[in-house]
C-alpha cells in the first residue's frame, strides 16, 4: 500500500519511525520541539517522545553540532537539524574536523553515527547569505556521506537508512519543496545510500541532477519529448558516494550527458561527474559533458537576479540541443 504525501511528512515519518524503533535516536536543533520545526518536519514529535528526545537548542550551531558529535561517539544516534544549511556553515568545524575524522583518528575505535540535516538551496528572494548549496563542499571531505533529495519516498527511505548508518551523514532537503508530493509506500522503506535512480528512461541524452533541480531537468525532458528528443533523467539522490555505475551505464546508451546542479560551477558536483564520465565512458561520448549551474556569483535579492542566476528548463534545453547538435 502506498499513499501520496509531501516531502515534509515523509521526512517526519522517517524520524518518527526511527525514534520508535531505536531509543538511542534523538533529535536536536533550533525550533524543532515546541515550535514543531521551522518548516514543521518534526511536527508532533515533542508530544510523542518528550523533551528528552526532542531538544530545542539555542542559536549555537557550532556548539550543538559538536554536542551531537560527542553524543554519537558515546553511544547515541543524534539527528541534528540545521534550520538551513546556510547556518550549518558555522558548524563545519565539528562536521569536517570531528564527525568526519574521529574514526580515522581513533583507528576505528570511535565511530560517529550522526545525521546532520536541513534544507539547502535558494528559496525565493532571500539574498546572498540564505540561498546557498553546500553539497560539493561536504562531499569533498572523506569520512562523510552526503545525500540530497526531494522525492518524498526517497527522502523517507534515505533518512531512515542514514539514521541506521554507522557513519556520519549530511542530508540536504529543500525549503521550497517541503510541500512537494509523491507516492510513498507505507511502513519500513529503506533506500540504499549511494544509489542513483533513473526517474525517466530515454535514449538520446542523459540529464543528471539532484534535489530541486530534478524538477527543472524533468520539465526540460517534457519539452524535449515534444520535439522528439528522448532524455533519460537520473536523480543522483546520494552525492557521496557517487553512483558511478548508473551514470556510466546511461551514457553508454545515450552517448551524451548534461548535468543540472544548483551549486556554483567551480569544483562542484557537476565538475566531478564530468570528470568521471570523460574518464570511464570516454569512448561512448559523442559530445562533451555539459553542465548547467547557478551563476558564478552571489545571489542578490531582486527577482531579476534570481531569474538570471538559477538553472531553468530553457537553459537545459539549450544545452541538450548543443550536445545533440540540434542547434542552428
Amino acid at each position, binding site marked *: 500500500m502506498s499513499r501520496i504525501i509531501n516531502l515534509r511528512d515523509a521526512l517526519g515519518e522517517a524520524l518518527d519511525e526511527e525514534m520508535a524503533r531505536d531509543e538511542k535516536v534523538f533529535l536536536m536543533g*533550533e*525550533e524543532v520541539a*515546541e*515550535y514543531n520545526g*521551522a518548516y514543521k518536519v518534526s511536527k508532533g514529535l515533542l508530544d510523542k517522545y518528550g523533551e528528552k528526545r526532542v531538544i*530545542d537548542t*539555542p*542559536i*549555537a550551531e*557550532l*556548539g550543538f553540532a559538536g554536542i551531537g558529535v560527542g553524543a554519537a561517539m558515546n553511544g547515541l544516534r543524534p539527528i541534528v537539524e540545521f534550520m538551513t544549511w*546556510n*547556518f550549518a*556553515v*558555522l558548524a563545519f568545524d565539528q562536521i569536517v574536523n570531528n564527525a568526519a575524522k574521529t574514526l580515522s583518528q581513533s583507528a576505528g575505535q570511535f565511530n560517529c553515527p550522526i545525521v546532520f540535516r536541513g534544507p539547502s538551496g535558494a528559496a*525565493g*528572494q*532571500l*539574498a*546572498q*547569505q*540564505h540561498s546557498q548549496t553546500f553539497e560539493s563542499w561536504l562531499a569533498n571531505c572523506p569520512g562523510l556521506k552526503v545525500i540530497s533529495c526531494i522525492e518524498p519516498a526517497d527522502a523517507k527511505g534515505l533518512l531512515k537508512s542514514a539514521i541506521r548508518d554507522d557513519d556520519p551523514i549530511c542530508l540536504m532537503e529543500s525549503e521550497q519543496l517541503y510541500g512537494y508530493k509523491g507516492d510513498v509506500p507505507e511502513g519500513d522503506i529503506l533506500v540504499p545510500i549511494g544509489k542513483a535512480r533513473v526517474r525517466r528512461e530515454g535514449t538520446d541524452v542523459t540529464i543528471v541532477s539532484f534535489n530541486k533541480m530534478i524538477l527543472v531537468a524533468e520539465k526540460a525532458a517534457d519539452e524535449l519529448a515534444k520535439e522528439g528528443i528522448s532524455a533519460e533523467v537520473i536523480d543522483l539522490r546520494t552525492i557521496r558516494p557517487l553512483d558511478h555505475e548508473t551514470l556510466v551505464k546511461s551514457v553508454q546508451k545515450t552517448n551524451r550527458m548534461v548535468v543540472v546542479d544548483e551549486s556554483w*560551477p*567551480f569544483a562542484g558536483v557537476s565538475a566531478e561527474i564530468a570528470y568521471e564520465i570523460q574518464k570511464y565512458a570516454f569512448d561512448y561520448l559523442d559530445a562533451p559533458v*555539459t*553542465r548547467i*549551474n547557478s*551563476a*558564478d*556569483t*552571489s545571489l*542578490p*535579492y*531582486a*527577482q*531579476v*537576479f534570481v*531569474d*538570471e*542566476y538559477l538553472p531553468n528548463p530553457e537553459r537545459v534545453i539549450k544545452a541538450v540541443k548543443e550536445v545533440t547538435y540540434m542547434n542552428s
Partner: protein
Amino acid sequence: MAEIVAKSKKISSKGKTKAVDKATYLDWYEVMLRIRRFEEKSLMAYSKQLIRGFLHVYIGQEAIAAGLKSALTKEDKIVTAYRQHGIGLMRGLSSDSCMAELFGKATGCVKGKGGSMHFFSKEHNYFGGNGIVGAQIPIGTGMALAEKYRETKNLCVTMFGDGAARQGALYESFNMAMTWKLPVLYICENNKYAMGTSVERTSNVQEIYKVGSAFEMPSEPVDGMSPEKVHEAISRAAEHIRSGKGPYFLEINTYRYRGHSVSDPAKYRTKDELNDYKELDPIEVTRKTILDKKFATEKEMEAIDARIEAEIEAAYKFAEESDYPMSSELYEDNYVQKDYPYIMD
C-alpha cells in the same frame, strides 16, 4: 501590566536622566514615527507581493534607534542584524532609498541587491544588516579594532538580539575586546524571543547583561521602551569607551509587536503580554511627554505626523515607479577586480 511597568522601572538605567532639550525630543519623535510608518507601509506592500523574501520589522523597538541617534556622532560606526530598517533610517538613509531597496529596485540603497536584511551605507557609517545570527558580533569588534588602530575617538556599536547572545562568537569577541580594550559598544536588543524561543528557554542566565561580568566588562540593563533611558545609558557608555577604557555592554529590554518575520503567527506568546508592552509604546509616550512639557502644541504634532505620512507615501511611490536593476548587474560587485574572469558556461 503592572508587572511589566514595575519590571521596566526596575531595569531603568542607573544614574539620573539628564534634562533633554526640546529639539532632541522632537527629533526622537520624528525618527521613531518615520520608522513605524515606513514599516507599516512595507507590511502593506508585502501583502501585495511588491516586497518578497523575508521582512523582519522593528515595530515596538524604535526607542532604541532614537536613543542611539541622539547619543552617537556621525563618525561612529554601527553594525546590526537583519531586523535593521530602523537602524538604517536612524543613520540617515532616506525613506526613498530604503523603500526602493525593499521593492528590489535599482534606486535602492544597495541597488536591489540586499533587500530587507541588508541595507548598507558607507556614507552614513552603517556597516549593514547581517543575516547570519551573531555574525556581526566579531565584525563590530573588528571595526572597533580598526578605529583603535587608526587612533580615532570613534566607537563602534555592535547590535544583536537575545537569540544571538547565545552564539559562541559573542564570548570570543567579548574576551578579545576586553583584553585589547577596543572601543566597542555591544548592545543586545532583548525583545524576549528568538523566533519562537523565549529567552528563558535558551540559557540558565536570564539577564543577558550578566554575561559581560565574566569578562569584567561594564554591563547593565536598560529600559528600551524609553528613548530618554536609552540615550542616557548610551551616552554614559560612550563616554567610558571614548576615554580609552575599552568595551561596554548594554542589554536593552524591548519588545517586538509583530511576529518574527511576516510568516510567523507568533502563537508562542499571549495577547496580554503584547498589549502590556503596547501600553508603553515609545511613540505614544514621547508624544505625550512633548505635549506635557509644552515643547509643541497638538497642532504642531499633527503637522509632524502629516509630514512623515507624506514622506512615506512619496517613498512608496518612488519605489513603485523606480526601475528594476539590469540582470547583468549579477556579475557586478562580486569582486572589486573589474575584469574578473567568471565561469560563464
